[in-house]
């Protein structure tokens, strides 16, 4: 069972980072003037949406019979391998914006670590939750 991040998921990540870019732009506006603030906001916003797209391209989640694998990153590749029996909980988070886009953030808890998956579609997050929790519990 494979899951990937949708384009709307990338848009959500871009929007979240744009909010941070707006905060940074506001700070620079106060410190250095409107040109610095607006310039940095535009630059950082563009970078945020690029980052969202790169985040989407390199991201996949695979659930096999025994293992959950999550691979992410474009330049800096990160692969997480977790045995399914170690999954202790799955949390799904959604905000008004993410619900509007039809995506959500999933936090997977295991015995050794907690790992987030940001930008899965709501349908995929339900399938992932069912695969990890309900099937493992034998329901």
């Amino acid at each position, binding site marked *: 069972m494979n899951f990937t991040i949708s384009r709307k998921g990338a848009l959500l990540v871009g929007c979240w980072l744009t909010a941070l870019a707006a905060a940074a732009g506001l700070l620079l506006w106060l410190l250095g003037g409107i040109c610095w603030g607006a310039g940095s906001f535009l630059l950082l916003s563009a970078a945020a949406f690029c980052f969202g797209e790169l985040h989407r391209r390199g991201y996949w989640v695979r659930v096999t019979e*025994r*293992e959950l694998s999550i691979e992410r990153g474009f*330049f*800096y*590749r*990160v*692969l*997480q*391998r*977790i*045995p399914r*029996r*170690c999954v*202790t*909980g799955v949390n799904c988070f959604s905000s008004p914006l993410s619900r509007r886009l039809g995506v959500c953030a999933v936090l997977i808890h*295991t*015995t*050794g*670590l907690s790992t987030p998956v940001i930008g899965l579609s709501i349908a995929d997050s339900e399938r992932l939750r069912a695969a990890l929790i309900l099937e493992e519990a034998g329901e």
Partner: protein
Amino acid sequence: MKGIRLHPMHFIKYIKYALLLCVIPILQAILAFDIASAWLAFTQDLLILLGCGGILAAFWQSSRVFVEGNAVWVRWGVLVRQLSGYPCGQVCAVELCRPVLLRLVGATQLTVYFKAGSGLRRLRLTLPRQEAGRLADFLLPEPKKLGGFEPAGAKRLVFILLSANMIATGFVVVLAARRTISLFGTGLRDLALGGLLRLEHLLAAFLPAGLSLLFALLLSFFALSVLDSLLRTFRFTACRAGGVLLCRGGLLTYTERRILVSAISSCTVRITPAARLLHYYPVYLSAGCFRGEDLPVLVSSRRGEASLRRLVPEFCPPDQPLCSPRRKSLPQYLWKPGAACLTLLALWAVSLRVLPAVSLFLGVGIGFAALSLLCQLEGFFTEGFCKNENRSLTLGYSRLFTRYLVTVCTDDLSYTVTRLPTAAAAGRCDLRVHTPSRHTYHLRGVEFFRVQQLDFNL
């Protein structure tokens, strides 16, 4: 097992600030030998003390700990009542702790650690002494056989030295000193500084000027850490029987730990510079959510591995090389200590011309950086992992001045593999192994194909 009440000391955290508010003026007056003022402060604070006593009594009266249906149940609370249940099958370690304060009032602090997977990681209760022992016996029975590891003579001295943690003790001492000074004024600070300066004057006779204060400080922290270790390891014994590993000892704070052998998740040997000099290595255990990093279970010499195997048979020294340094990147290991060493060398060269008084300090820093550089160089040749015949996984890695050899004996592992483009091109990656104790072991520059072959079923 019939129901028992929690000790009133369990609830002291709710009233400790009110209690401190009352006790400090009385103590200050007593320290100043002003009995009249102490009595006046006592009478003024009597109402607050009575209120605190009432709160404690209400909490104590409503509390209950009982065992029912193979689970420990804890009920407490006055206005909002809470009943919590903890399954006995999830218990992996039990710790009985009796500091001086609790001994004076006949209480024992019982900490129950749970296996991974459960939401709760540990449960801490303060109970009357006998009841705490009875509950601990119910959860993990005390092994009858004694005499596994009882350090005596020179081995005791080695155990004390290797259990001492100068950095942690120094940190705690500084924090405690700051808190004490803020409560009792600057008299204690003057006393401590006076002692330190006297030691500095003594050392100034043997050491070059400028270094004596640094060495006085280091010597003070070392003495305090050894004293702390001496107190914690007083009459220390460790034995293993009936599927339970028992460690106990301590003078001021008596500590007894019972670890379920089947729940042991990792066994760590720390090869510190002191351990290399003494040719003895401290062995630490973790089980489930019990981390056990503060005190080793035993110290073992390289020759004395039979005793180690008797007490901790889970430990498996690697019987094959852990890595092949062929694919590794030397800068990945050496850049931190190397950069520190080069920076200090440059500063030292400048200080020789500009400020010769500082050059000795910098020389000491260069020594430490060079030591770390050597340790990292060792890591370059030895950092890696291997699977053992007993289905465990051995990890070896170096950090700062210490080399760690870890035998992981649990199946509940997760791996995180990270690769930079350059590392991916060279076929290597960084591997992080996550255990149920929330330990993350970071191995640098291991071969990617070996990581891909790693299976979860140890």
